[in-house]
């Protein structure tokens, strides 16, 4: 019912009679975006929390390896398997390495895998989907067939197969994660481009003499970006989970490189004997990161929806 308040057109004098010397085209001024962001955060503190966590993860990814108290790779057999203490906040593992340092240092790798794979699939899937939705015809058929074929596999299993076949490396994890997310991006972009292809405003732009390319760039893509942005922050979480899962079963990252999935795998055998901290803290870090990205997705959705900006 909040539509009721919205339909009332504000009286004309409510807006200051700005001289507006320059053309204000695309977005409203950034100040209003900030105001809107503040409003969103104030309205939903969980979103604020997500943005805070995201900042923390970003900081850890950038500065983590240089600020940690111990060398994440240095083993010290005298201090092996120690429970969390003041000296070792998260305890030590079977080789006496400081788990806190390793968890923080691993942020960069996990975060990079997620960012790069999402950026890759955004370019591939987004472009393919937009073209398929806008032009239809054979492009649509090809993109649809490729997406269907990928979707015919259970995605994690396909990722296993890809990394196993291409070789065990971080680059291939990024690629595999991008490939299994391809159908999702291609489909969303295709559907959005397709409904807008015949929307009134696109037809109107055709009448204004815009070429197809210009229609794509000025009318379709900017209107799809918000949805793609939401998609990206939601898949970030999935990308991290997927990469960690692969390294948990021994694909991609190799020991002793600090990475959350592999650290959980290393700690797994100690769970039954009660040394819970080895697996627990990297797992917790992983969980928090994924949780943060998922919440962020909802926050981004609120932020970019032009209807909600009033």
């Amino acid at each position: 019912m909040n539509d009721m308040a919205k339909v009332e057109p504000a009286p004309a004098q409510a807006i200051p009679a700005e001289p507006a010397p320059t053309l204000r085209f695309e977005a409203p001024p950034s100040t209003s975006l900030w105001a809107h962001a503040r409003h969103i955060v104030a309205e939903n503190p969980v979103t604020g929390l997500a943005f805070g966590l995201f900042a923390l993860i970003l900081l850890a990814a950038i500065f983590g390896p240089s600020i940690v108290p111990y060398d994440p790779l240095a083993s010290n057999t005298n201090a092996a398997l120690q429970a969390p203490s003041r000296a070792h906040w998260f305890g030590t593992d079977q080789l006496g390495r400081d788990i806190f340092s390793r968890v923080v240092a691993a942020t960069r790798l996990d975060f990079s895998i997620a960012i790069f794979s999402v950026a890759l699939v955004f370019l591939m899937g987004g472009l393919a989907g937009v073209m398929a939705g806008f032009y239809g015809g054979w492009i649509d058929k090809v993109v649809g067939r490729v997406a269907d074929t990928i979707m015919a596999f259970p995605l994690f299993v396909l990722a296993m197969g890809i990394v196993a076949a291409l070789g065990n490396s971080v680059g291939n994890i990024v690629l595999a994660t991008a490939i299994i997310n391809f159908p999702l991006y291609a489909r969303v972009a295709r559907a959005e481009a397709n409904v807008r292809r015949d929307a009134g405003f696109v037809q109107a732009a055709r009448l204004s003499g815009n070429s197809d390319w210009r229609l794509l760039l000025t009318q379709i893509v900017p209107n799809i970006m918000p949805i793609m942005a939401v998609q990206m922050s939601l898949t970030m979480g999935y990308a991290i989970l997927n990469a960690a899962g692969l390294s948990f079963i021994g694909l991609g990252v190799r020991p002793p490189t600090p990475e959350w999935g592999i650290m959980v795998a290393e700690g797994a055998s100690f769970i039954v004997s009660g040394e819970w901290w080895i697996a627990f803290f990297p797992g917790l870090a992983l969980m928090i990161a994924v949780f943060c990205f998922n919440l962020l997705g909802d926050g981004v959705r609120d932020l970019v929806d032009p209807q909600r900006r009033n």
Partner: protein
Amino acid sequence: MLRMIGQRLMTTIPSVIGVIIVTFLLTRVLPGDTAAYFAGPAASPQAIIEIRSKLGLDQPLPVQFVSYVTALVKGDLGTSLTTGQPVTADLAARLPASAELTLAGLLLAMAVALPLGILAAVKQGSWIDHLCRVVATAGVSLPVFFTGLLLVYVFYFLLGWSPAPLGRLDVFASEPPRVTGLLLIDTLLARDFETFRGAFAQLILPAVTLAIFSLAPITRMTRASMLAVLGADFVRTARASGLTNRKVIGTYAFRNAMLPVVTTLGMVFSFLLGANVLVEKVFAWPGVGSYAVEALIASDYAPIQGFVLTMAILYVALNLMIDVLYGVIDPRVRLEG
């Protein structure tokens, strides 16, 4: 109805062809020496050459593809270096373990998720709605292997309620005669209740782990589609005609709301079959997933390839079943075909 099933069957053919081509490409075309993979890490150069000609890898690609497909039709997926058995036999022996685990996880998840999602939608804004939202967000954030380990720590190490996470059955228990391969059913058929209890105890934790993982998407979708349906015009009509709440929710809203949920099941299966691999590793479950992981560690390639292919074919079949189920619920699909 038959016509619809026939049509759905036709639509799976391109998927199956796609799956076969992709698995073929993964083994033959991409960089890396396939023969070296198949020969294993310890093989001599001579052995690799032998394997190359034995596998037909020195033939042109189309010829290789034809022989690949021919072998597939015969059910030949190669031989595992680790077990020395044909991959097909290995997979067949281990598939029931995975199926039992996956089904148990899925049923458990649905038993919790459907009522939770429906109640959350019907009582929007109540505590159950909030619980639903927490479950939906937390569930997708939990790495499945991490959940499994946490459960093991709490219920095995701390509380001692669960048996050691080492497979389907206690080492001292004897397996019942194999009928379905599903231990819970086979033990009941053999009236061996002692073993049934043991198998059940072993199954609980891994099944719960999988259930927690698949809970989130089902809950989320149930709640969302139920909310959408409850706001639909035809529900308003039903209410305005004085139908009871039970009739409105049970007959009018529920079946309509199930349509998107059934579609989501496809995605849930995709997640489950993947998560299965991780859960089997955590609980040393003797299914196809842990078989593939062992093969990965040993760089034994034929089992991995067989595993990927089997899972894909299985998944295509599951999607077909989901499509048919959808048609059963929705007359628009059934009648228009």
